Structures are given as structure tokens and as C-alpha cells.
């Protein structure tokens, strides 16, 4: 279906259900869709499984969602950081589950979900605790671990500019997981700095084609910013 454009963050996240798996873009704060996360906190969905590279920084964005007690399980590669005190406290209190995934496997498991791949063999993690209990196979003399896709019910991502077709471009390293997560969820919602008319984004530079984007939250609907 064609992409729906809105300037109302609460409308954008309205029907996210309790128990959903939510893919949240960003590497640290770069690319994190803070406005959508704040709306999700107001919306109240709970018992969420959240996929992000990290487990929140400081008190805003994902950290605020964790602090609100809405997240049952984190799937991430690097939860422990100098400013991950919200997650640290929940984890040490036994109030949140953690599935630790090597960063490349995390990205590839979502790419597999978005590409309709049933599972894949990865060389990453072979012989380590993170491969325990997983099927292994030797292919061409090299050992691999079977990894399954991670599919989201919802993806919340941050991009730079969107057009009314839903096409997205990103800015610098804020791109990170956004394009992969956009493909991997049943409902993909992107917040962008501004929305432009059809034709204003050169088709050759579109990073995420609009087919992967269900909704765009326009952060600059009143034209005040850049």
C-alpha cells in the first residue's frame, strides 16, 4: 500500500499492540527515532521485545522506553556502555531479558527477514558461547552456525528526507540499521527531518524505496526547520 504521511506522532504509532517485536533504528543516538519512541511511550504498549544495536543511552529515546517498563526483552549486540545505566539497572534487577547477538548477525538476521530468507549459515560466533545450542555445518571446509531471521511487527526508524512515495535518504552514519529494519517489519514507520514532493529526490540516490515504508512522520510539517 502507498505510504501514509503524517505530522502526528501519536497517530503514527496508534495501533502498536502489546507483545509486539519492535525494531528500533539507531546506533547509539545517531539515527534513533526519538519522536516515535516518545509517542510509543505515550501510547502505552507493553511487554515489548525491542531490537536495537544498543540498550539505550542516557535518559531519552530507547532508554526512556526501558525506564517506562514497557520492554520485556532486548535483542542487541552491545548493551553495556558508559551511559546505559537504565538498562544496567533493569538487567541487574532481573526485570529484563537479554538476547545478545553479534552485530553482523543481528543485521543479517533482519536482512534475511526482509528478503524472505528462511535462515542462513554465518561464520560469526563459531566456537563461542553465542553459538551454543545452534545447528552447525561445515561448508567448503569452514564452520558455520545456523541463524534465523528476526522479523519485526513494527520498525521505527529515523531518516533524513522522505518523499510522498515513501522513498528515504539518510544522513551520514545515522543510516546504520535503518534500511535493513525498514525491510524486516510488517509495519515500517520512519521519522524524517522533512518531506519533499515526488520527484525532488533523485531516483538514483534513494536508499530505501517507498515499498518498504508504510508511514512517514514529518518532523517539519510546519516548515520551521531546515
Amino acid at each position, binding site marked *: 500500500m502507498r505510504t501514509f504521511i503524517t505530522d502526528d506522532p501519536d497517530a503514527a504509532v496508534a495501533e502498536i499492540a502489546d507483545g509486539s517485536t519492535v525494531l528500533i533504528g539507531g*546506533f*547509539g*543516538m*545517531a*539515527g534513533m527515532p526519538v519522536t516515535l519512541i516518545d509517542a510509543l511511550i505515550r501510547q502505552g504498549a507493553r511487554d515489548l521485545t525491542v531490537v536495537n*544495536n544498543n540498550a539505550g*543511552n542516557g535518559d531519552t529515546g530507547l532508554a526512556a522506553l526501558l525506564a517506562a517498563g514497557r520492554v520485556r526483552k532486548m535483542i542487541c*549486540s*552491545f*548493551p*553495556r*556502555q558508559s551511559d546505559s545505566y537504565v*538498562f*544496567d539497572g533493569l*538487567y*541487574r534487577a532481573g526485570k529484563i531479558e*537479554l538476547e*545478545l*547477538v*553479534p*552485530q*553482523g*548477525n*543481528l*543485521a*543479517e538476521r*533482519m*536482512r534475511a527477514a526482509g528478503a524472505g530468507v528462511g535462515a542462513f549459515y*554465518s*561464520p*560469526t*560466533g*563459531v*566456537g*563461542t*558461547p*553465542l553459538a551454543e545450542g545452534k545447528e552447525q555445518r561445515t561448508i567448503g571446509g569452514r564452520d558455520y552456525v545456523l541463524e534465523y531471521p528476526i522479523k519485526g511487527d513494527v520498525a521505527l526508524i529515523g531518516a533524513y528526507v522522505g518523499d510522498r512515495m515513501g522513498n528515504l535518504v*539518510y*544522513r*551520514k*552514519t*545515522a*543510516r*546504520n*540499521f*535503518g*534500511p*535493513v529494519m525498514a525491510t524486516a517489519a510488517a509495519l515500517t514507520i520512519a521519522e524524517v527531518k522533512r518531506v519533499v514532493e515526488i520527484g525532488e529526490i533523485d531516483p538514483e540516490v534513494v*536508499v530505501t524505496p517507498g515499498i518498504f515504508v508504510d508511514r512517514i512522520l514529518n518532523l517539519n510539517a510546519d516548515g520551521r526547520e531546515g
Partner: protein
Amino acid sequence: MSMIEARGPVEHLDRGPRSKDEIAAAVAAAIPPGSYVNLGIGQPTTVGDFLTPESGVVLHTENGMLNMGPAARPDLLDPDLINAGKIPVTELPGASYFHHADSFAMMRGGHLDVCVLGAFQVSEGGDLANWHTGAPGAIPAVGGAMDLAIGAKSVFVMMTLFAKDGSAKLVPRCTYPLTGLGCVDRVYTDYATIMITGDGAVVTETFGASVAELQDRVEVTLRAPSQASSGG
């Protein structure tokens, strides 16, 4: 590396062990010109300070960039332009951005020439342990370490040769949880530079101690270049 003929390692006994900066400079000097290189977070990042533009080395950062430049000036920070350690950085002419799955395809697919990582332990067979102490209460975090360890064509480790308690970090078998199997090629430490070869741990240089003195403190057999077959 030039082959060192049957003379054994070079022992620098007129000085102390290498400083962190000297280790970083040695790693930088060992990176072939024109390489695509990923520097791990923490100490390995400092290797970048010793790479010259003439080397033509292109830095990769796991969060989706090639030809990353140095850290950003405090008055020119861009929150959308950070490195793997989430430090604001800069872009060099010719830089490119890409998403995470492509970034890790560069590692896993064998496109990166060199990565430099820190370590808790390296085994004589090249096993690496650098992500988790396994201590009770420690929150595990792996990031991109496992992908880098098995993906880059050459894996250089920089670390101290001994832990704070005096135990060697070059070990027969790692006791910390593993990051990758048989993946380390070279180990640059304060006291020695060590090649991990099919013939074991080969010491090419020492600093502030002789091979014999280090051997007294390291369980792994330290071999001289002449004892190992060539080609490592």
C-alpha cells in the same frame, strides 16, 4: 614482513617495554599501504593517530562508513557522524556511507584487509577472547568483535603481555569466553611482537626483556623466527 634469517628475534634490552603509543605506532607501521582497515574501539582506535595520509590506508567503521577521518573538533561536532565508539568523527574526501548489513558483509565477506582489536587473552593457536570476562554480574556486550575477528583477512591484536595480576595473556588455551577460533595473526604487546603461525607463537622483537626472560613468565613456547618455517 621481511624474513628474518636464522638469527632469532631482535631483543631491545637497552630500553623498557613499549608504551601504548609505541605499540600503536608499531601496528600502524605494520599495516600495508592501501589497506582497508577497521580499528576496534578503545586502544586500537589510537592506531589511526599514527597512520599517515601517504599510506593510503582507508579506515572502515562498523556503523557504516569508509574513509573515516580523525575525531571531530569540539566546535564542529555532528551527531550523525560518529565512529563505532560513538565518538564524533569526520569524513575524508572519497568517503562513503552504507547500511549495517553491507558494513558487516565487508567484514564477513573477507573484503577488509586488516582489523586491530584489543584482547583479554590470545591462545598460541590464535583463538581470541576479548568480549566478556564471564564474571558474575558482568553485563555481556559483544558488538562487532566476533564478526571482525573471523572476517578480516588479517587480525592484529594489541594488548599488554601480562594482566594486572602478572599472569600472561598469551596462553595455551583461553580461559575467558571466546570471540573467535584461530583468527589472530599477530600480537603487538609492550614486551614483544608475536606472530601466530602454524608452527606456534613466533617472537620477532622484544622490548625491555629477553625472550628467555619472557619465557619464564609465559607458558606458551616462544619460538624464534629461525625455528619456524618461513612464509608466516
